[in-house]
């Protein structure tokens, strides 16, 4: 379980995240919605220790993000997929995927390779294993990014707007991969602007507004008039997104 309690994060005098509480159970899929600049990326970064925070507690399966050696353990089973892919440009697709399993998990090279090839097959990129990231399309790179995260056999997957730097058709291919994953046992916490997709795969949806988590409801209720939509900020956000 990812458990965030009373998380407060500042940049200088600006309060970016204000007293946030959220839990993600094992196997659950939770989406976070919110306007640009509301603090969603910062929130995910706090969870895997890429940002530190002033107040509150974050634990993953009972391990504290704020303790160095516990954070190291968390990172072995809580992986991230990034908006701009962030693949290692000097390594092949296969090496990108096997690097962390081999060096961090100390998985034998052969088994890491086999696992990577299996993952690549699942996302339809088998023949690209020897290529370098720069020679792939954005959608293909992001699918490699997903494989790299899955190669750790994570219990939790953090996804930060993983399709927002992609064309619509590439977005489709990446979302298909994620939807396919959603049936597995990996919990996902995803920040997204793809409302339709969030609605389809999430069990819960949380809405952040100016650093405050204002709504956190099961998906069905989130989109009901009496539930999420009764909050003016959510309603305004959703109607704005639909207009795009």
């Amino acid at each position, binding site marked *: 379980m990812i458990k965030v309690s009373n998380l407060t994060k500042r940049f200088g005098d600006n309060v970016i995240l204000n007293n946030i509480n959220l839990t993600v159970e094992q196997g659950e899929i939770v989406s976070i919605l919110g306007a640009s600049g509301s603090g969603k990326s910062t929130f995910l970064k706090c969870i895997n*220790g*890429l940002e530190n925070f002033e107040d509150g507690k974050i634990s993953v399966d009972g391990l504290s993000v704020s303790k160095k050696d516990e954070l190291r353990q968390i990172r072995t089973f809580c*992986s*991230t997929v990034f908006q701009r892919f962030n*693949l290692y440009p000097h390594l092949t697709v296969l090496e990108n995927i096997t690097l*962390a399993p081999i060096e*961090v998990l100390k998985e034998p090279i052969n088994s890491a390779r086999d696992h990577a090839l299996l993952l690549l097959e699942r996302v339809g990129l088998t023949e690209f294993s020897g290529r370098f990231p*720069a020679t792939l399309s954005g959608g293909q790179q992001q699918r490699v990014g997903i494989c790299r995260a899955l190669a750790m056999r994570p219990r939790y997957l953090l996804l930060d707007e993983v399709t927002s730097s992609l064309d619509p058709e590439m977005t489709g291919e990446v979302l298909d991969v994620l939807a396919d994953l959603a049936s597995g046992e990996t919990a996902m916490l995803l920040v997204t602007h793809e409302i339709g997709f969030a609605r389809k795969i999430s069990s819960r949806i949380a809405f952040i507004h100016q650093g405050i988590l204002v709504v956190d409801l099961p998906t069905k209720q989130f989109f009901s008039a009496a539930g999420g939509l009764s909050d003016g900020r959510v309603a305004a956000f959703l109607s704005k997104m639909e207009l795009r």
Partner: protein
Amino acid sequence: MLGLSAALLQSAGGPVVSFMSKAYEELFRNIPFIVLIFFFYFGLPVLGVFISPFFTGVLALSVAVGAYNTAIIRAGIDQVDKDIVSAAVSFGHSKYQIYSRILLPIALRTSIRPLGSMFANLILTSSILSTITLNELTGSAKIIASYTFKPFEVYVLLMLFYCVLTYAITILINLMHTRMNKIMVN
């Protein structure tokens, strides 16, 4: 080697180590090479430290070139996309792994060209060592010139030799650069 370790210390070390390495870089980058040699060769003996011309040459060249290389490699490290490093951190890689598997390999690819011109420079600079009776290329040429009484021919040949040598190095480095960066076009 010296440049590499100093750059590493600067970027990965604690504040004190990083400051010392920065101080080294700034100090020796701002001293004319010939002054450095004279100091090692003529200055140090006053303190009772005697070193042979050859060792002075090696030492002075390493120290000076090291200082420049420090700057080059550090710039290469600083240029690496921070998000790529974040990704590696998020997967639990240790600092050592991040430097050895991600930062340095990428930084060396961008630094190879300036490092190459540094190397070419090193060869040219080594001619200054003839002033302390070290018989490298220029020193030997000087001797031959005075033996044969044909300074014009000898020095033309010498110039040609330096020129071809550094030019060959430049070509080699460009080849290496293209090879290493072919994969990262973007």
